[in-house]
Each structure stands twice: as structure tokens, then as C-alpha cells.
């Protein structure tokens, strides 16, 4: 499972300018994501999780330290790292099929029409969107938009999948279905995944490793290896091991949430 390190956080810190001078968000984080890992990042809101993902995506650069991809510093976004945004970011002016094909029409990963069609058809089938091939996104439900975003990212064959609370806006049933679909798709075409989530259950159910982040400025509070083999099924939720791990992580996370809340109050009172 675990292979060579692909993404490396090397003493990474991030500060943003703020009214009180500089706001330190990420504090000296070092971590390695190995090939084929599924890393779930969990921590209080506002601690700096999205900032960490943005550094991997290439939207921002750390103020000190380095974020490396296969040994080279990340300088910008690229099709090797697919990003799934919480707001989906499905293109409303393109049909479902055109959305999936979008990346394949770009110079960076241009495919011939026949190949493009084949890829679109495959992912529409995989994500259960075939019936909606020529529909506008405005006609899709939240879960379907999410699947479309996933299909669009997959179409350009990224090696990495970066997901920022991707299922946060979905209802419980859709969310469970999306989790299983994600595991299915990953089983078919392995990727290295970084997933930000607020749900302890989701992190355990999906990930091979979990990183619990502290309150801001965020540090790694604990690294956990999830001891369950893939493929995983819903029944896992009922096992004693799952529940023990969940209690342990929940305790950690609750403590950090409390710390973050206290800190926010202090900032508010200033």
C-alpha cells in the first residue's frame, strides 16, 4: 500500500497579513503523503486545513518551508492534481458531457474526439450520469453535481485527488452513497488522495491515514494509521474497532475545537 513519498510538507509555515500584523495559520508542519495513500485531514474550522490543501494545489506558496511534489517545489496548479471544491464549481454553461470533456479539450491534455467521447461515456456510466449527458447542470441535484465534478477531475487522469469537504453539503444518504462511489472509483483507478473533512466517521471509513490538526496556528496533533483493509463496506461502521477509533479521534478533535473556539473569542474581544 504505502510507497515512496509523493507529497512532502517540509517544515511548512504560512502567515497571512491581518489587522493585528501577521496571522500565523500553519505552524511548522512536516508530513509525507506516500504513493497510494488516502490521507484524511481533520481539525477545527478556521485552523488552516484549506490553506494546506491550497499549497498542494498550487494556489498559494508557504511563507517558509517547502511543499514538494516528487521532490520538486510546487509552483502552481496543474492537471496532475485534481481538486474537488466544496462548491463543486461545475461549469453551468456546459452540458454534463461537455463539463467532463473540458479538461480534454485543453492543450495540456488534449485528446482526439473519439478518445474524448470514450472517456466521457465511461465516466458518465461510472458516476451514474449517462441519462443526463446533454442536460445543463442547473437540472442536476447536489449529489449529481458532486459526481460531475469528480468525473471532470478524473477525465484528465490526475495522479492526486485533493478534496476539500467534498460531501459537506450533501444529505446523509447521498453522502454515504458518494463515499461508497469514491471507494469504488479509487479501487478501479488508484490515486493518492488528500481529503479534508469534518466528519470523524468519514475520515475513518475512507482513509488509510488520518491527520488530526490542532487549533490555529495549526500543527499536526496526531497521525493515525487506519487499520482496516480495503475494500471497505458499510458494515465496518458497526464494528468495535471502528467505534474505539472513532471515540479516540473524536476526543482529540473536540479538544482542538474547544481551543479554537476559545481563541476565536479572544480574538473577537480584542
Amino acid at each position, binding site marked *: 500500500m504505502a510507497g515512496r513519498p509523493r507529497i512532502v510538507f517540509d517544515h511548512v509555515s504560512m502567515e497571512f497579513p491581518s489587522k493585528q500584523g501577521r496571522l500565523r495559520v500553519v505552524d511548522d508542519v512536516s508530513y509525507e503523503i506516500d504513493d497510494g495513500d488516502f490521507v484524511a485531514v481533520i481539525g477545527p474550522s478556521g485552523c488552516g486545513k484549506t490553506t494546506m490543501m491550497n499549497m498542494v*494545489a498550487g*494556489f498559494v506558496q508557504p511563507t517558509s518551508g517547502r511543499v514538494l511534489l516528487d521532490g520538486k517545489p510546487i509552483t*502552481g*496548479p*496543474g*492537471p496532475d*492534481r*485534481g*481538486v474537488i*471544491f466544496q*462548491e463543486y*464549481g461545475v*461549469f*453551468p*454553461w*456546459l452540458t454534463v458531457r461537455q463539463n467532463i470533456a*473540458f*479538461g480534454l*479539450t*485543453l*492543450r*495540456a*491534455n488534449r485528446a482526439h474526439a473519439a478518445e474524448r467521447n470514450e472517456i466521457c461515456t465511461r465516466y458518465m456510466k461510472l458516476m451514474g450520469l449517462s441519462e443526463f449527458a446533454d442536460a*445543463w*447542470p*442547473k437540472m442536476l441535484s447536489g449529489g449529481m453535481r458532486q459526481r460531475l465534478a469528480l468525473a*471532470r*477531475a478524473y477525465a*484528465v487522469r490526475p495522479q492526486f485527488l485533493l478534496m476539500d469537504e467534498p460531501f459537506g453539503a450533501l444529505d446523509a444518504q447521498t453522502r454515504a452513497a458518494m463515499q461508497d462511489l469514491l471507494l469504488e472509483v479509487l479501487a478501479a483507478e488508484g490515486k493518492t488522495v488528500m481529503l479534508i473533512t469534518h466528519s470523524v466517521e468519514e475520515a475513518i471509513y475512507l482513509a488509510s491515514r488520518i491527520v488530526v490538526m490542532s487549533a490555529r496556528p495549526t500543527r499536526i496533533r496526531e497521525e493515525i494509521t487506519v487499520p482496516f483493509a480495503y475494500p471497505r463496506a458499510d458494515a465496518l461502521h458497526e464494528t468495535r474497532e471502528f467505534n474505539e477509533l472513532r471515540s479516540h479521534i473524536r476526543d482529540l478533535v473536540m479538544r482542538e475545537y474547544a481551543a479554537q473556539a476559545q481563541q476565536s473569542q479572544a480574538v473577537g474581544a480584542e
Partner: protein
Amino acid sequence: MLRRVVLIALPWLIVIGIWYAIAYSGLINPALVPTPDRVAWRFWDLMTHARLPVDILMSTQRVVIGVALGILAAVPVGFVLGWYRNVRTFIDPLMNFFRALPPIALIPLVIVYFGIGELAKVVVLFYASFFAGVIVMYEGIAQISPIYVRVSRTLGASDAEIFRKVIVPLTVPHLLTALRVALGVAWATLVASELIAAQQGLGALIQNASSFFQLDIIYVGIICIGLIALAMDLILRAVARRLVAWQERIA
């Protein structure tokens, strides 16, 4: 279907009804209120025996040219202002200053700088369309969510590809709205622009008629302006419905 036709026709029939009522009520000197049938007859008379077709053509041509040039200029300016927030902060008051000036107040200056020919009339219409259009454009473009640009970058899009495949399609709805607003403003400004020594045009028709107190002709001119503006707006709306069918709601 029938219901729809009735609902569309009803407000018009009510207006005509009120018009008749006023004309025949005796509250106002009948000489001052020509009846609808009198105006309709005059319309037909001017259409067949006189200048009305030429007037309509000239006015429509001026409006179309003024709006076309105005929007052509509004697109790049709207882009820059919509895209660069800090530029907008400084330019916004200036835009609102110029937009607030009534074109009719500018006419003496337009005559001084552009003479009394066709150019001067188009300049007035250009002015009105540009400032109406540019504000719609940049407010629309400023609202474009940056997430689409981010998504396309993660899929490997270059700057040129982002412009062509993301920004342009997202701009089309705002362009259509700008065009509709500019057309409305241009028709509303037409009579003012034809104050500049116009021999032909609906504005000129109205002004000539007023010198001779031909109220029915004034009514014909006014109604023609309203109807042509309405027709153009309906056509643009139909185009918009096809072009931006993807939008959640059509403006």
C-alpha cells in the same frame, strides 16, 4: 393559449379604453386629445403617402449604430473595470458622474465639437449607450465567481484558454443585458439627439409636428418609438433565451 393572448392584449386594451374615455369625457378640450382611431388613421396616412417609413428607417439606423458602437466600447472597458477591483474603486464615481448627465444638456457641446451632421446625432446615442452598457457589464463581470477560473487551472488551462473557454461564455449573459439596457436608453435619448438639426427621423417628425400643433402626428411619432423599442427588446430576449439557456434564471 387563448388565455395568454387575452392576458397580453388586456392591458393594451385598457390603456386605449382610458384614452377614449378621456377624449370623449369633455374634461379636456377635444382638440387637444386626438382619438386612437384618428391617430391610427394618421399613422396609415403617413405610412403610405408621406415620410414615415424614412423617419423610422433613419431613427432605427441611428439607434443601432449608436448602440453598436457604445457596446463595442463598453465591452473592453467593462472587462477592465469588472476584473480589477482597485481600478473600479477609483473609476466608479467618474462613470456615475457621466452617466447622470442628461444627454440633452450636452447637445450644445456636441454641436460645437461634432457639428450638426449625422455624426453628432450618433455621438449623443453612443454616449448614452456606452455609460448605460458599461455599468451593466462591469457589475456583471465583477460578480463572476473566481471558482471557475480556479477549477480550469487545476484542469490544466492556460490563461488564453481560461479567457476563451471560461470568461467569454460567462460574459455573454451580461453582454446581452447590457445590449438591452443600452437599446432602451438609446431610444429614450433619440428625440434629444434629433434636436440637432435633423430633417428626418421620428424625433424630427415630432418636433416639426409640434411647430404646427399637429397633435395626432406627435402621437404617431411617440407610439412608433415605443413600439420599435419594444419589438427590439422582444427580439433580444428571444435571442438571450436561446444563447444562455444554461442560466438558472433568465433576466
